[in-house]
């Protein structure tokens, strides 16, 4: 069987979830050269409703284009976390935006405050999605960092390019920290 990976980004309308999904799909499909299918589901409201985007990445042609069991979940809101957690594989990777997701039952989680980083470092919350894409390249092996950055560069408006590159970098750094913390936590858990 072909290696097929199923990734989901979920959150609220206005958080740039679908754009992030498109960037991921472009990174995987065009720059990493894999087969890819990206779908989306969202409420009718432009802001505040649910929003999610599935990205299926494979070495072979993809039939069913939506996620069935997640290898990766990014939850950008508490609702998104609660609604989608049951679809995550036991060994799947979970990343949450800890600005909004505070009530977490799962121990194996990368909790990174994407929105707070975007607000505090860049003065605009709407780059939180790009911060999260930077982080994703560090905590999951499915999309290469180079490909993701190339796709970001292609899909954001030119005048915001520098801002977005910095946001991407900030996400990477935050993820590296979170990784160290989680490694430490593992050690503590083992000792106990």
């Amino acid at each position, binding site marked *: 069987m072909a290696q097929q990976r199923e990734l989901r980004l979920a959150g609220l309308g206005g958080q740039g979830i679908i754009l992030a999904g498109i960037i991921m799909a472009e990174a995987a499909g065009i720059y990493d050269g894999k*087969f890819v299918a*990206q*779908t989306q589901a969202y*409420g*009718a409201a432009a802001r505040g409703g649910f929003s999610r985007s599935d990205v299926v990445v494979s070495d072979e042609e993809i*039939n069913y284009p939506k996620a*069935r069991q997640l290898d990766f979940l990014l939850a950008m809101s508490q609702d998104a976390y609660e609604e989608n957690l049951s679809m995550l594989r036991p060994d799947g990777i979970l990343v949450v935006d800890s600005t909004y997701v505070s009530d977490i039952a799962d121990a194996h989680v990368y909790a990174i405050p994407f929105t707070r980083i975007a607000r505090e470092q860049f003065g605009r919350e709407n780059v939180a999605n790009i911060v999260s894409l930077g982080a994703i390249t560090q905590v999951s092996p499915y999309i290469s960092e180079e490909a993701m950055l190339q796709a970001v560069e292609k899909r954001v408006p030119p005048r915001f390019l520098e801002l977005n590159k910095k946001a991407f970098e900030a996400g990477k750094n935050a993820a590296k920290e979170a990784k160290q913390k989680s490694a430490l936590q593992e050690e503590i858990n083992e000792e106990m």
Partner: protein
Amino acid sequence: MEAKLLMGNEACCEGALAVGVDFFGGYPITPSNEIGEIMSRRLPKVGGRFIQMEDEIGSMACIVGASIAGRKTMTATSGPGFSLMQENLGFAAMAEAPCVIVNVMRGGPSTGMPTLPSQGDVQQARWGTHGDHPIIALTPSTVREVFDLTVTSVNFAEKYRTPVVLLMDEVIGHLREKVVLPQKESVEVVNRAKPTCPPEWYRPFEDNKSGVPLMAPFGEGYRYHVTGLTHDEMGFPTTKKDEVDALNQRLHRKIRQGFEEIMIHESFLMEDATTAIVTYGCVVRSAKTAVLEMRQEGKKVGLIKLTTLWPFPRIAFENLSDQVEEIFVPEMNMGQLYREVVRVNHGKRVVRKISKVDGEMISPEDIMRAIKREGGSGAKVY
């Protein structure tokens, strides 16, 4: 051509532009919006015309008018807009104005669920407008196929002088995939047959072998009458029964003569199958996954993909082996095409429907569960 990440709705525009659509009239509606948006930007750059009309009634009217003036025309909409288009769609069938109506199906009835998928307009595409008219409706399952079928839709419209409905669903319209599009030069382009006789000899609705009258564009010196009333060869209203019958018979005959070409369908792992899944649109994707996974469990399941929905591709079933005992028809409606599958199988096989109407795409699990639960369990459905 290089690989691109394209959305179904984008691929539709690429197909339309490649085959020479040079007039688009429409009114925005989710989930077809991207089509109008892209056409409004792209068409003027290649000498085409884009117009946003006051509603879908006007949209349909303007593409019929532009078509009679010689343009290759298209519009795009979703359920509620498709309903408004029905009257003028019938006019297009009667006036034999080539045009393509893209309907990206969303949840219904009425305004339903704008952002969620469904396949609820399958019978509307067939019988939405009144009168005993023929129609062609095609439905794609991949982004690349959206491109190809947009080209085919425009070519069928031109060749048979008929409105063609390209029935997409929200899943395919909004799906992004990596695709390589063909070079524009390699795209087959069919243009309507025009008269070569002097204008005063022109009989605008005269029959011929193909059943498709030669079509003179308005503005080139051929003056003739176009009406929704039943008309004679000259385009003027008639109630003489020989003329009425001749027109109605010809309208159907011209499509019937093309059945071989029009009824597009594909088989997937049907060679030894005892159970067939028959489906279309986005559900083909789920069905393929289901077939592959059930085959791993040793079940002989195959798939018949219906690309053409109308005229219903009965030829897909005519040579079906007697080995096939059971057919499952998964659809995102209460069984609109299932009835057709029952009809053409004449009680020879058990036909069961798998309906899903909760606003979500049918999953491979939905199909596999139904086959495992109901497969081989008895009574034929007539």
